């Protein structure tokens, strides 16, 4: 077996979080723009034989929606999308997301693309998995400069769920909405609690012995490099070429 690429490890890690029996069921998952690793994780779950419906927003052939892009938000508004993935140019210790930019509104420092549907999806899906490969103090900050979507909401504000976890290139955090804090769940190879602390701008909990993030299994790797890649290449040609080579 050749070396495990970080992207493969992250996809397998996300797949395990999707299947977490302690979380609300993921019967219908939507994946947004520019999310090749979450998309790979969803395909992996499906191709492992789990009954899950995937709605990939940027898939051109076989796109699931016939009423335009608003259909995703209408479905989510009804509570019919169980899980969504979000990231952010900045993510803070309360799981607030900034997709707008740094500095003053609307991003007078570094402008990010924008909030997309985050200000709605984060409230209306029973769970969200946060994903950001770059794990650095400039991304994982104590307090975001601008809030695209808040991590928690006051009592009385309608909200179906919050972040379940945050997966980065260094580790997995679990999110605890009751205290609006992250705790360290597992460390990717080569990382320690101290190395993660040094790379993280926010304070987080780390109780007891923190385990290693498991390697993808041989079966998972075979699927990722075969059928998952084949499903993804139309939508994410650049990503598939970089991780798995140009031609099969």
């Amino acid at each position: 077996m050749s070396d495990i690429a970080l992207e493969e490890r992250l996809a397998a890690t996300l797949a395990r979080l999707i299947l977490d029996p302690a979380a609300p069921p993921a019967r219908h998952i939507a994946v947004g723009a520019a999310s090749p690793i979450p998309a790979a994780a969803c395909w992996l779950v499906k191709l492992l034989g789990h009954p899950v419906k995937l709605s990939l927003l940027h898939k051109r052939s076989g796109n699931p929606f016939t009423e335009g892009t608003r259909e995703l938000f209408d479905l989510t508004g009804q509570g019919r999308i169980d899980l969504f993935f979000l990231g952010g140019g900045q993510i803070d210790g309360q799981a607030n997301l900034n997709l707008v930019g740094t500095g003053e509104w609307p991003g007078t420092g570094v402008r990010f693309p924008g909030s997309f549907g985050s200000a709605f999806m984060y409230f209306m899906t029973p769970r969200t998995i946060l994903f950001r490969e770059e794990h650095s103090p400039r991304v994982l900050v104590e307090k975001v400069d601008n809030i695209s979507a808040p991590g928690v909401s006051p009592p009385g504000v309608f909200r179906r769920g919050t972040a379940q976890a945050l997966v980065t290139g260094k580790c997995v955090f679990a999110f605890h909405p009751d205290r609006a804090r992250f705790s360290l769940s597992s460390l990717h190879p080569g990382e320690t609690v101290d190395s993660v602390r040094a790379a993280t701008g926010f304070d987080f909990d780390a109780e007891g012995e923190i385990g290693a993030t498991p390697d993808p299994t041989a079966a998972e790797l075979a699927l990722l490099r075969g059928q998952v890649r084949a499903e993804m290449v139309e939508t994410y040609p650049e990503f598939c070429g970089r991780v798995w080579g140009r031609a099969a």
Partner: protein
Amino acid sequence: MMLPSADALAALVPDGALVALPPDNSLPSVAIAKALIRRGARDLRLLGVPVSGFATDILIGAGCVAEVETSAVSLGEAGFAPRFSAALRDGRIIVRDATCPAIHSMLQASEKGIPFMALRGIIGSDILANRPDWKVIPNPFAEEGMDPIVLLPAKQPDFAVFHAALADSEGNVWLGRRRECATIAHASKAALVTVERVVEGNFLDDERMASGVISATYITATAIAKRGARPAALLDEYGFDAAYVADYARAAKTEDGFRAWLDREVFATAQKVAAE
């Protein structure tokens, strides 16, 4: 009304107009965007439905745009939109950030002719804090009068601008399932549409075509523009031209690079067509 070219459609758009555009995955008329640049349009207000892409970036770079209302501006895998970012940094455009379902909802209010729509979420976001035109009220149907909910005003663009595969003899256009273009057309005062080709007959007589049609009721003018969505994809007819967008993203990192790109891809191609 069938016009001879995308440039003839662009001539109908006055400076300062509010123009709704779909993004790169949903049939933008890049042909009309390029024609607006050639016409020297100024002070346009663009609405990204619900986000913005390549066409918005080139219009901003060419100095055609005063304001952008959108939920994001991006070139997809080619990265951030360089001319949008530069114009925002230099204070040359006003940006009104939204979130995708809010833009759909504001257009749906116009479709229905009602003053506002309600939408869940958003509360606690700085998007809301920066949108004085959006209001929060207690849900009037809630038992205890609590349950705050956001109200969004109806948004009526002056023009819907997009690309479709086909037009028919009656002026109907067909674009399949990309119904956000129908929402834009329904909500706007006028719709300008480029198409790949015009066919004889009436799509509304064909049950298999009818559900993918936008009726001529909503279409102000159309023109043929071959590959008019390019570099964006057109349904199953042609794919996204990632190399073209990556080349643009490299060129448009600098003002000089962008100007050279415009000369080559927007102004020179028109001269070449005119000479043929």
